[in-house]
């Protein structure tokens, strides 16, 4: 291992891939460090699975290089890679029972004693909470149980890297949360590098050490969950991760931004004087105050109770803001808004700038619709 790749277990260098002339990955550059929990996050069709399959060896990139421990592995077949995969719909062997599914990887290569196999399979099943299920037919298991078998099967050979392609996609919400915790525990216990694919941003934020946000075959941002949430690099990331009000603004000078016809203090600098920028303000970072104390003021057009807070839409000079507040405000009320300097995040203009407007089309119904389509 040379100085330059210390700690890096996988490196992707300028990976390009197209199917039938359609570019799917367009220059992916990524370093993944040992023992990290890395999540690929992005909308459907952005190339997450394809990237994962290139790392596993099921696809070869048209261009670019894949390194493992500093060695190029472009031409190494999947069965020689120290990488194992948990497939999206588990892909358990239907002709084998739970025990034999998990033992599958142990029965290949060098011969192990049956007691050794049995001991390791039992240990693994204990780790995924499936002790006693050894003789069960895999098709008789619930989705969550099949998922655990798939994880046990993939971990039994002690891979250096585990690839998980939307492993919780088919589970219901409650089970999903439990499995998220379990997966995180398993990752910490084993010290195996996890590369995790999801299009659920909440899942990504709560589990990952590093999030890789992708769109249209291009990495938009790589960073820790807090970085990604607090410092999105462009309008796409800001919109995709959490709720956000994205406004057109101008950087007057360092630490001074102008939007909604007002000048605000902020913590951002390094932009040209008068540069057009995108401004992000998260709904939970805005304080509702009486009109006379507000920096901005507007009319409440909708109020939705969300349990912990109210989600309100406020019309300010024609731009609809989403704001989350624990104080009740009534519809059609005239309110003031107060924004702290650290709640304002300034981003350079990008090709996504015009795609994300305000919340004018927002309604609960629409929200539910988009959630449903996401889950498909």
């Amino acid at each position, binding site marked *: 291992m040379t100085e330059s790749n210390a700690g890096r277990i996988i490196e992707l260098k300028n990976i390009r891939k197209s199917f039938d002339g359609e570019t799917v990955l367009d220059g992916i550059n990524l370093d993944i460090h040992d023992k990290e929990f890395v999540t690929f996050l992005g909308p459907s069709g952005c190339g997450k699975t394809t990237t994962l399959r290139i790392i*596993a*060896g*099921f696809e070869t990139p048209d261009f670019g290089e894949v390194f493992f421990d500093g060695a190029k592995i472009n031409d190494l*077949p*999947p*069965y020689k890679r120290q*990488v*194992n*995969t948990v*497939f999206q*719909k588990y*892909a*358990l*062997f*239907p*002709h*084998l*029972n739970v025990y*034999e599914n998990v033992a*599958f*990887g142990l029965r*290949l*290569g060098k011969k192990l004693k049956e007691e050794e196999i049995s001991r390791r399979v039992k240990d693994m099943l204990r780790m995924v909470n499936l002790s006693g299920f050894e003789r069960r*037919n895999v098709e008789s298991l619930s989705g969550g149980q099949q998922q655990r078998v798939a994880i046990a*099967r*993939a971990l039994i*050979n002690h891979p250096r890297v585990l690839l998980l392609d939307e492993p919780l996609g088919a589970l219901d919400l409650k089970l999903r949360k439990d499995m998220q915790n379990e997966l995180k525990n398993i990752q910490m216990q084993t010290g195996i590098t996890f590369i995790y694919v999801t299009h659920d941003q909440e899942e990504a934020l709560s589990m990952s050490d590093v999030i890789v946000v992708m769109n249209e075959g291009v990495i938009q941002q790589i960073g820790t969950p807090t970085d990604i949430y607090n410092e999105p690099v462009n309008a796409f990331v800001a919109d995709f991760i959490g709720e956000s009000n994205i406004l057109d603004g101008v950087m007057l000078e360092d630490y001074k931004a102008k939007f909604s016809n007002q000048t605000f203090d902020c913590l951002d600098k390094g932009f040209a004087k008068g540069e057009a920028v995108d401004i992000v303000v998260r709904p939970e970072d805005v304080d509702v105050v009486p009109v006379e104390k507000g920096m901005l003021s507007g009319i409440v057009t909708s109020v939705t109770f969300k349990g912990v807070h109210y989600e309100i839409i406020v019309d300010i000079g024609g731009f609809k803001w989403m704001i989350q507040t624990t104080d009740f405000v009534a519809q059609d009320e005239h309110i003031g808004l107060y924004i702290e300097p650290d709640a304002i995040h300034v981003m350079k203009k990008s090709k996504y700038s015009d795609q994300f407007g305000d919340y004018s089309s927002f309604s609960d119904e629409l929200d539910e619709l988009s959630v449903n389509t996401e889950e498909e």
Partner: protein
Amino acid sequence: MKQRSLLQKCLAAPHMVWTVLFIIAPLLFVAYYAFTDSEGAFTFDNILKSLEADYMVIFFRSISLAIIATFICLIIAYPMAYAISRAKPSAQKIIIMLVMLPMWMNFLIRTYSWMSILEDTGFINQLLIKLGLEPVHMINTSGAVVLGMVYNFLPYMILPIYTVMVKIDRRLVEAAHDLGCNSFGVMTKVIFPLSISGVVSGVTMVFVPSISTFYISQKLGGGNFDLIGDTIERQFQTAYNYNLGAAISLILMVLIIISMAIMNKFSDEDGGMVV
């Protein structure tokens, strides 16, 4: 809703009539003839006669040729079915059509064609002579009979195996590779166990017509390789001994049932078991 509604019973009626008329009734006729003499009196003579040495030789020959033909079909069909199932979907359709193409031609014509190909002065031997080689005697050998069976029944082996193989999830193959299997391991540990059911139906669909065929052996075996089918045919067509013919048929049926039971047992065990 345990009770079937009247409508359901009515809908099932045509099927019941069909079954009784065309399956159960003929079987009863066969059994009746097998256990009676020409006068119609009950007897075991027909059965005992069909178990005599002369007929046992024929039974044995039929079984061995059918096993050989089935085995050769399997060896040819399995890799073919695998290759077809891996081809592009559009190519798969065309290849499957080519596999079935000979079935559109009449069975008799196909067998006659093989006669003229295999004859001492047939196509192959003429070719050999043109090439300055010694002609080979092929027609009227047991090899020619087996060839006829393999040629005629091969599609029945390919199709069921192919049908099972296209349904094997590609991700299972990838999962096996992922866990450390090379291509050979994938074949033995995943593809083969998952295609057993296709193999079982293929074997049944080739073995049963092979063991009961009568035309192939007459034309390609030249009467030197009488099979059970030929014997039965002769009892009905030339000897007019319906009773003996029925008895031999009955024994053939029992043989087929036994071999199918063995095959099914084999598939049950292998299907659900550890490799």
